């Protein structure tokens, strides 16, 4: 049974990869936005800092680094990863629904996990490609020293974060299946994460109530940990407490996703709304 599910998972991943390859503009977009969006914020930071010693000191005191570009590009990379997850695995079930093939998929004897996570590997390739490009840009254009050790530590943090993002995508997929609106929901959710998770700013500038919400969101921890590794050279043991919290949040996210998905599926099957759009 497990072997059959693994084969189905491989087939689902391959299918998604093939679809992705047919739309090469996706890969141009995946190069364009991760470079341009944080670049705009770097220019904005230059406007706010203006090379003024006091302003830059204030920034360093609040963020723990003087590497403004590094700070913004790391935040931007995680934000783009979130976008990839929401537009990819997060919207995959809804896409099947609009194509009219969701009910057929639910009739196959594969685990629901295959349907939920099957498209994720192709989008992970996309995300890793984006991280690589951003890493090269940070190293070459902004002279952020990213050695092999730093890259490995950052990859470990990213690997630990994968379940959190998969859980987030699955939770989103289940909710979209229920409420049937992708575009507006993706924009809203991305906005919420951008405002709360410190993508372009340190979360200490948020009001206390917003900081309390921010620390319950996995992307906040991922951004902070990768910034610590890349910009401050933090070791993995020093990040252990935060990574444990991240692991706990990941597990919580995955359990919530499974429960919400189960509930949405049961309701959709009962009222016959599974294939409606």
């Amino acid at each position, binding site marked *: 049974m497990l072997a059959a599910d693994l084969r189905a998972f491989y087939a689902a991943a391959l299918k998604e990869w093939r679809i992705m390859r047919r739309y090469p503009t996706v890969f141009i977009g995946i190069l364009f936005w991760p470079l341009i969006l944080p670049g705009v914020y770097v220019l*904005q930071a230059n406007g706010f800092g203006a090379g003024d010693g006091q*302003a*830059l000191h204030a920034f360093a005191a609040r963020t723990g680094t003087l590497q403004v570009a590094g700070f913004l590009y790391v935040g931007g990379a995680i934000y783009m990863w979130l976008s990839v997850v929401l537009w990819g695995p997060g919207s995959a079930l809804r896409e099947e629904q609009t194509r009219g093939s969701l009910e057929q998929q639910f009739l196959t004897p594969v685990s629901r996990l295959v349907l939920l996570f099957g498209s994720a590997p192709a989008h992970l390739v996309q995300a890793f490609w984006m991280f690589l490009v951003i890493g090269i840009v940070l190293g070459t254009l902004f002279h952020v020293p990213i050695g092999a050790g730093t890259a490995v530590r950052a990859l470990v943090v990213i690997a630990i974060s994968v379940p959190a993002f998969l859980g987030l995508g699955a939770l989103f997929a289940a909710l979209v299946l229920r409420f049937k609106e992708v575009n507006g929901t993706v924009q*809203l959710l991305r906005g919420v994460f951008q405002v709360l998770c410190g993508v372009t*700013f340190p979360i200490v500038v948020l009001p206390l109530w917003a900081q309390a919400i921010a620390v319950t969101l996995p992307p906040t921890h991922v951004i902070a940990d990768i910034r610590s590794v890349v910009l401050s050279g933090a070791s993995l043991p020093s990040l252990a407490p935060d990574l444990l919290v991240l692991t706990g949040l990941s597990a919580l996210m995955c359990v919530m996703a499974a429960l919400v998905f189960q509930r949405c599926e049961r309701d959709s099957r009962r009222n016959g709304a599974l294939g409606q759009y």
Partner: protein
Amino acid sequence: MGAELRAVGAILRRDFRLLCRHPLNFVNLILLPLYQFLIPSLLLGAAFLVNGRSVGLARTAGTDDIAGFLFVGAAASSLGFGIFWGVTWAIKREVDTCTLEQAWLTPTSRETLVLGSALTSLAVSSVAGVVLFAMGGIIFGAHYSARIALGVPALLLLLVSLIGIAFLVAAVVLRVRQPNFLIDTTSYLFVVTSGVLFPIAVLPAFLKFAAFALPTTYGLDLLRAGALGTSPLLPVVWEYAALGVIAAGLVAIGRWTFLRTERRLRVQGSLGSY
């Protein structure tokens, strides 16, 4: 002429009726810039504050009012995004529902069809811009001067320029057929290079040249000079002259490009294909 004006009126009524059917889209016109770039930008600005004052922005833009700087920019940017996306969606909708050829067969000039959609987009995005502008003052503590009224002629010239851009966008959408990525990136670069999010002074030299070719740069600069008391990039008369020349040029080039593209597609027989 009277018939063309009636056609423009009919397009406006049709587009507003469609907008009323999807009120969430209008709400998103205001919410999207708010949570996607205004609040993150305000918070980034807060990270640079020294004793509650933005000393850096005062040096690069001539004002330390971060909220004022950003919300005037957002109001102007909503016009830019509005014209790009409004015209794109209007034509894409006709193509996707296979009604473009029928609309083209009516005895209305093709330019009128684009002009109608452009005017709807500008009307809707103007309302969104005014709401954002007001929110900046009421909720986010921006301080505007009444001298912003002096920027109204600049705003009018900017609107004329954007009509020219509407024709260019229409030509691109008809030609490319899957224009989302192109329009997304072009509109973003167009708006951002105009100094919506940061002072033009921080742009690299080659991008400054690009910025000075954009009507939004001058329109926004004159509005900020009035509302926030910033120093204009160039003497005011020069900025008006540049804006006037760009507006006339964009309308002429845009109209010519649109008519040429439309004629070519009709000859090829690919007007309604997608």
